[in-house]
């Protein structure tokens, strides 16, 4: 998908051309959000759990250096080869080298948002390595040659009929067949053949435990386990912020993660990988890619507490109506909008503005990230650094000029009311960004200042 030179608002316009689909997308995600509420309300200590998770993550960020060293030491003792990657390019090179050393040019991958962030698939493809995504949703968007639009539900933007068409074209299912049970069975058959013939498997990491050197991978489908337990080489890729101090902290995080994500009490599989099985190689790549920079920003560092549940997306009134692709970054939605500007402030300058600042994201966040406050703070940083979108920057300049003098303000108000009343076409048009998304208000006869002078001052 070509999203070049389009910002969130333009990409949302594309998504909004099909209003029925927007309504369906909105309702589907709200359904997931409602399931989250039900699951959360079933746990009497839910709020204490969130607080505990938040404090554990605060501790992690404040002691990250020691925890990473401890984790590395224990993982090595367990027989795991640990690699460090400063950025996406180094991460991709490390993966490629491991594969090359093993003479492997075909691999399977379970869900890993980090590898999406690093554009690993594209890199490997360009180096002659075939990657097959095994999460059903990811496989679907891979066949469609699109990025995932949601971090937990990668093809939430797709209708079953479109998936049926894709499967007909690529997997040979009957034309017009769109029954989810039938399509899932077809994918199962296709991917099982893949599982038993690939020698290398990549997985993501949900949590890595410093005290034991083990890492935990959560899936519902079982695809991470199918891949890892059959492959000769298992490569696990993780951002450095995925560390937690102790094994028993998992009790807190696993209780929160899936309830927040889909409303399930836990994922079907929560697998704890500690040692390679006999004869197997296990590699783990610790990736920075901007995380240490985010750590240096006091206002934004706690975005690194994120456990990738996507509750903030499911609840977001903007995400639900603009679709994941409108964020033009691997991690969409509110959390993505505070992570992406750290990686590239210019390219993602539009994202912190893709919010109503309603605060629902912060309210559902299982690790209590103040997402909407960070969105607001990013706006200020972006404008100050000169990265504000041009149209917005001009509007702000005009506003600054108008508000800086009482006389200009008074006359501008008068002029505005005159134009809206007598020449509405001058404001109700496409050049007015405000009108683009809203009805203009009815024109009052006088300003508050004029009304006050007439009615109150004379009393």
């Amino acid at each position, binding site marked *: 998908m070509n999203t070049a030179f389009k910002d969130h608002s333009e990409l949302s316009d594309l998504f909004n051309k099909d209003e029925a689909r927007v309504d369906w997308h909105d309702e589907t995600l709200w359904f997931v959000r409602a399931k989250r509420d039900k699951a959360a309300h079933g746990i009497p200590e839910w709020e204490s759990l969130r607080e505990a998770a938040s404090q554990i993550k605060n*501790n992690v960020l404040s*002691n990250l250096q020691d925890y990473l060293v401890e984790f590395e030491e224990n993982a090595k003792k367990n027989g795991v080869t640990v690699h460090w990657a400063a950025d996406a390019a180094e991460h991709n090179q490390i993966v490629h080298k491991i594969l090359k050393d093993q003479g492997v040019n075909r691999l399977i991958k379970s869900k890993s948002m980090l590898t999406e962030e690093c554009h690993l698939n594209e890199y490997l493809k360009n180096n002659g390595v075939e990657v097959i995504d095994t999460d059903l949703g990811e496989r679907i968007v891979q066949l469609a040659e699109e990025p995932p639009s949601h971090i937990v539900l990668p093809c939430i933007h797709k209708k079953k009929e479109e998936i049926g068409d894709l499967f007909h074209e690529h997997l040979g299912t009957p034309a017009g067949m769109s029954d989810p049970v039938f399509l899932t069975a077809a994918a199962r058959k296709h991917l099982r053949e893949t599982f038993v013939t690939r020698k290398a498997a990549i997985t993501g990491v949900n949590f890595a435990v410093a005290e034991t050197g083990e890492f935990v991978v959560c899936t519902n489908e079982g695809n991470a386990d199918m891949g890892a337990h059959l492959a000769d080489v298992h490569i696990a890729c993780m951002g450095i912020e995925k560390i937690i101090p102790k094994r028993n902290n998992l009790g807190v995080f696993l209780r929160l993660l899936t309830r927040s994500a889909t409303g399930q009490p*836990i994922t079907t599989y929560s697998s704890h990988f500690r040692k390679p099985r006999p004869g197997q190689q296990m590699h783990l790549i610790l990736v920075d890619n901007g995380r240490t920079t985010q750590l240096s920003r006091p206002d934004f560092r706690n975005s690194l507490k994120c456990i990738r549940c996507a509750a903030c997306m499911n609840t977001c009134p903007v995400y639900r109506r603009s679709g994941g692709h409108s964020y033009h970054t691997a991690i969409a939605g509110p959390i993505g909008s505070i992570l992406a500007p750290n990686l590239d402030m210019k390219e993602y300058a539009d994202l912190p503005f893709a919010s109503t600042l309603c605060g629902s994201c912060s309210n559902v966040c299982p690790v209590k990230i103040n997402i909407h406050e960070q969105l607001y703070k990013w706006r200020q940083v972006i404008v100050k650094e000169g990265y504000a979108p041009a149209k917005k920057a001009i509007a702000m300049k005009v506003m600054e000029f108008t508000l800086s003098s009482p006389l200009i303000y008074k006359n501008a108000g008068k002029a505005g009311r005159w134009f809206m009343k007598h020449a509405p076409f001058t404001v109700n048009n496409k050049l007015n960004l405000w009108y683009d998304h809203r009805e203009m208000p009815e024109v009052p006869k006088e300003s508050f200042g004029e009304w006050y002078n007439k009615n109150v001052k004379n009393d």
Partner: protein
Amino acid sequence: MTNSRAEILARILQNQPELSPLPADLVTVTHYDNPIENFKTILSNIGGLAVNVLDYQGIQDYIKTHFPDQRIVSTLAELSAVSEQGWENLDPHSYENVDLAIIRAHFGVAENAALWITEDLMHQRAVPFICQQLAVVINAKDIVETLHDAYVNIADSVYGFGTFIAGPSKTADIEQSLVLGAHGPKGMTVFILD
């Protein structure tokens, strides 16, 4: 590569905030009057099936009735009469056509119907994932209330691989329609030994 390690750690040390203490372990208030019943209800909600049995003979009878003429492997010596012998050390890919695998779990968790299983109970790690149907045997007394209790049980035990399994493999990736049997088992039976 070694440079990246040193550089990343140096940048973290430079940028990490002042030490914030690790909180005390959470005190749970979640309590179930009948954890076994809760376990069974949740298991059925997530697509699994709980079967109460008195003894291993009960399990064998159930299997003979419900899984006739199938390829069955088990890690339980008590079930050797209904399962294949000498399967344990084959290439894991060869289990692709196992219809039913029967293994033991250390314990179950009432709040989410998850079962804690380490690799010594699987023989081979692939077994509980590659089989078409999974059955797990636990003792009724081994059902704890919450995941916190679960990690108290696990404590600092050593394993190469361990997993919580809750119900059959599933996906809802196509329009949020729940389908059982994404890649792993299409069904899960839990035998609860009284």
